[in-house]
């Protein structure tokens, strides 16, 4: 629908609609359309196919610029998993644990969501499925104490990787965000230099609020990577373009289902192509 067309105002309006519908966001969409119009004028582009290719290149460039992999090159290696409520943190940890275990690492999970009903039991099922050890406390206990116990355990047993599951929290709740800071401090105090990886989990169905989520979490603990879940739905998750561009956080993984094997390393080219499919 964007190929073989004349480059005119109507074409750019339809392109604007396509980008908005992919959740690229108003600000980023307007900037992209503006740049494309300038380039079309400068290079006297008449073919819509060329504009589309130009746009894809722009988007791929943004995502590739802040590309990153999860490199568990030293031990112990601590992965801290954060995000708002219901995005898929606990499920992602189960999937990630299985993947890392298959690479021959010894993994331990910390059930630091001591707040939500049955959060600990939910992670226990995943630990069992991924065949990894889990450290838990009592429901209602201080999450920092569970993290402390988990660190003592991995030090004692010389495990390779610790993955910390946290309670979902809205980024506009100050007390909950301070709790994240406190947990991070405990980790760096007990294991200087850790956590090496702070993963923010985002739901692909989320609109522009994902940007404010990423900003807030980055500000409170810094974020080293993003996991974009639920891409097996129909949402495109285009908001990660803005997050990459403005906050310079690499997208590391995508969630494409509810089963343990439904985790993939992020592929920028495939992602951009799917935005227009």
């Amino acid at each position, binding site marked *: 629908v964007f190929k073989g067309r004349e480059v005119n105002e109507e074409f750019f309006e339809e392109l604007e609609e396509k980008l908005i519908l992919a959740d690229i966001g108003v600000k980023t969409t307007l900037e992209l359309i503006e740049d494309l119009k300038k380039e079309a004028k400068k290079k006297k582009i008449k073919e819509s196919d060329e504009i589309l290719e130009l746009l894809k290149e722009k988007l791929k460039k943004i995502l590739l610029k802040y590309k990153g992999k999860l490199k568990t090159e030293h031990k112990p290696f601590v992965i801290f998993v954060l995000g*708002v409520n219901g995005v898929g943190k606990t499920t992602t940890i189960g999937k990630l644990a299985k993947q890392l275990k298959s690479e021959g690492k010894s993994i331990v999970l910390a059930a630091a969501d001591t707040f*939500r009903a049955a959060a600990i039991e939910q992670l226990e099922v995943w630990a069992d499925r991924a065949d990894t050890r889990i450290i838990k406390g009592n429901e209602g206990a201080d999450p920092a104490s569970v993290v402390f116990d988990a660190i003592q355990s991995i030090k004692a047993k010389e495990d390779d990787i610790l993955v910390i599951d946290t309670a979902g929290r809205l980024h506009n709740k100050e007390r909950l965000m301070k709790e994240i800071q406190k947990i991070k401090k405990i980790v760096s105090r007990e294991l200087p230099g850790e956590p090496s990886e702070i993963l923010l989990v985002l739901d692909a169905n*989320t609109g522009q609020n*994902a940007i404010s989520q990423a900003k807030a979490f980055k500000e409170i603990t810094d974020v080293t990577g993003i996991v974009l879940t639920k891409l097996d739905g129909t949402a495109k998750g285009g908001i990660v373009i803005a997050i990459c561009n403005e906050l310079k956080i690499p997208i590391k993984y995508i969630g494409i289902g*509810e089963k343990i094997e439904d985790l993939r390393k992020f592929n920028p080219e495939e992602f951009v192509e799917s935005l227009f499919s």
Partner: protein
Amino acid sequence: ALAGKIQSAIGKITKKGRIDEETLNKGLREIKLALLEADVNYKVVSDFTKEIREKALGSEVTKGVNAVQQLVKIVNDELVKALGEKNEGLQLKNKPSVILLIGLQGSGKTTTAAKLANYLKKQGKKVLLTSVDIYRPAAMLQLKKLGKQIDIPVFLQENIKDAAKIAKNALDRTKEENYDVLIVDTAGRLHIDEEMLREAKEIKENVNPDEVLFVSDAMTGQEAVNIAKAFDDNVGMTGIVLTKLDSDARGGVALSVKGVTGKPIKFAGVGEKIDDFELFYPDRVASRILG
């Protein structure tokens, strides 16, 4: 806020008796952007701004109010109207009544089931909860624990791997023990998963609910329209619950979902605790959408 944006877009307005075309176009662009920034679906925005245009063109500017204020008032009033002017509340006609909760993964169904149960209990109703989520790890335990917190019984059959069957059995228990209301929590499912949509339909046929509430996350983006429509077309809903309104999401999904299904938004989830549950107020969400 919106008035300020429209004002700066329009620049100096000479006092006119009516809103003229040029002023209106500039104002409409700001309104369109504000709604898109609030995550209202693109097509819904386009239809909505057309309605605003009709209302505003040639409308009389009230004495003592300038054109910008007039336009913002029109937008606000139309938005409140579009979001559902009066909350009808739950329509529980049968005895016993059944409420079915459906929606995408992680939208807040299980938490909402408990909140709704507590809300009805406070109204003096005898409530039974059940979970037919046979998939998610510890889903049934989650509802069981929540039920315990609010002292409401939860009917579970953890060894039956058939959601529709458990629902039927829960309804039998509801009748046997003279409960007023049965609330059925279902597994999260994709709106494009035919098998799971079929399951939802089977559950619905087995319990013949008075209300089928679509639970939708307030921070959902552009796909909200397709998601809601698919659930409505394939399962059928009688109302909507918007959750996580305690976030700073603008909540444009409210206009999109109500707009495309025509179904009323009945409740708002405003936190993780059981009491964080209220009737949906269209005027509050309208001003938040407009930013």
